[in-house]
């Protein structure tokens, strides 16, 4: 496993788990090895959109019930075409996690049995947790923004903090 030194020492300072960075093409083999090594619980999967660095970081939190030990695996993906192998058959919990990260951040998990949106409607445009996401003014004819109720009431002065 490529236990590279993290690029930002600060990032790892707060974490008490062993953190390793893995290349995207090594992830599948690494996942199988970790699973065989006793990390039987995929506790969490987070995708972080680092827009300035043009990358999407996947953070897998693993836990071993037998050893009471935590392990964090981070994978960097290119922001334009973020694709990584699915591990839905290694940990079945990954099935829904991967669907959620696909839905909200547009990460594609190759080999996932059922990669559909999970939280947003199926025909929703874009991936809302991307940092450059702009919500369309309407969705299927329904406006996505509402007028500020305070401004509709003429008897109320606008709050002073708006005047700057």
């Amino acid at each position, binding site marked *: 496993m490529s236990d590279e030194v993290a690029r*930002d020492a*600060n*990032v*790892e*300072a*707060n*974490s008490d*788990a062993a953190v390793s960075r893995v290349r995207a093409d090594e992830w599948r083999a690494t996942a199988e090895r970790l699973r065989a090594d006793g990390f*039987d*619980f*995929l*506790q*969490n999967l*987070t995708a*972080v*959109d680092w827009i300035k660095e043009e990358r999407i970081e996947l*953070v897998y*939190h693993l836990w071993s*019930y037998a050893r*009471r030990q*935590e392990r*964090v695996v981070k994978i960097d993906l290119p922001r334009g075409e973020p694709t990584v192998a699915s591990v839905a058959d290694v*940990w*079945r*919990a990954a*099935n*829904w996690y991967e669907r*959620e990260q696909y839905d*909200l951040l547009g990460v594609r998990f190759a080999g996932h049995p059922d990669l559909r*949106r*999970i*939280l*947003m*409607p199926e025909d929703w445009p874009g991936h*809302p*947790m991307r940092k450059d996401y702009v919500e369309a003014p309407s969705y299927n004819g329904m406006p996505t923004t509402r007028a500020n109720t305070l401004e509709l009431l003429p008897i109320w002065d606008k709050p002073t903090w708006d005047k700057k």
Partner: protein
Amino acid sequence: MGELILANEATGEEMTLNMGPQHPSTHGVIRFIIKTDGEIMREAVPDVGYLHRAIEHIAEKCTYEGFMPYTDRVDYVCAMPANHAWALAVEKLAGLEVPERAEYLRVITDELNRISSHCIALGAMAMDVGAITPFTYILREREYVNELLEMICGARLTYNYHRIGGVGWDMPAGWRDKVLAWCDHFAPVMDEFDRLITNNALFVQRLAKLAVIAADEAIDYGLVGPNLRAAGVDFDVRRDVPYSIYPKLKFEVPVGRGLVGTVGDAWDRYWVRAQEWRQSVSMVRQCLAQIDATAPEFWKAPKKLKPVGDAMARVEAARGDMSCYVVGDGGTNAYRARFRTGSFNAMGIIRDKSRGLMVADLVALIASLDVVAPEIDR
């Protein structure tokens, strides 16, 4: 009846039914698409997202302190541990210390909230399988807990009580005696509930050996909390990944034993929660006995909160391991926040577990997993 069902199965007539999203026994706005053959389900496919409020996205839009009220909405049945998870994650990220008194107050409120959440879970579970009366009995107890929590933080459901670096208020005068009086009152109620429901022959028949989840399966699907312990896995975040002042408290971790059926059946999931009541009451008592020895300070508010890095905090909520992963980039807002919740994983297992169950048992399965809709969707 059995022959009828078998006859139906032989015809192979499959019917697709819609259940929800506004169905009263789906515990919130959840939808299932059920494929049945007579009364027997081929499968129930959950369709979630109706309560998605983009809470993780809101976390990126407001300050670390300002996000606290939103964490209540992650799981409104058991909001206090969500407060705790957020506070713990940010404190870990920023390297903050919390006054000891605040830790005690956090644990007291967490445990009181766990009791009230389990009241809903067990009462609703009994109601879902046809026992209406216990629900009203146990909801009365939940009212008392809500009143206690209202006295300490002014809210009955969405508390916004924990703060980054402490808690919002100290306990009011006389509160301790009220909590202790309620603990004394609740002890016989738990026994009464056992007589009413836990060992009720009909209830046991209905739930024993139903929707058995084995230990390896539960781990694979990422089940946590009471659902995991019912499957026979002896794990509790409070004991095994200790946080706050839990190491100072004496408590047992109830694990499913299959007393009336198989380990990991729906009744075990019920039983584990009923045992956790007793543990929580005992923890509240211990905390109230120890809190006097602490200094009066209850909130060390950070002057500047612009942390860099990432941190993961695990908290045992009523629905198990509620983890908060937060990434900071040096700004006043979180760069990314993620809540990992128990109900999300519990929903993921329903499709597999529903195969071959009766349609009415789906309701019992959902109830026994104690799924709460906002926690799935966030």
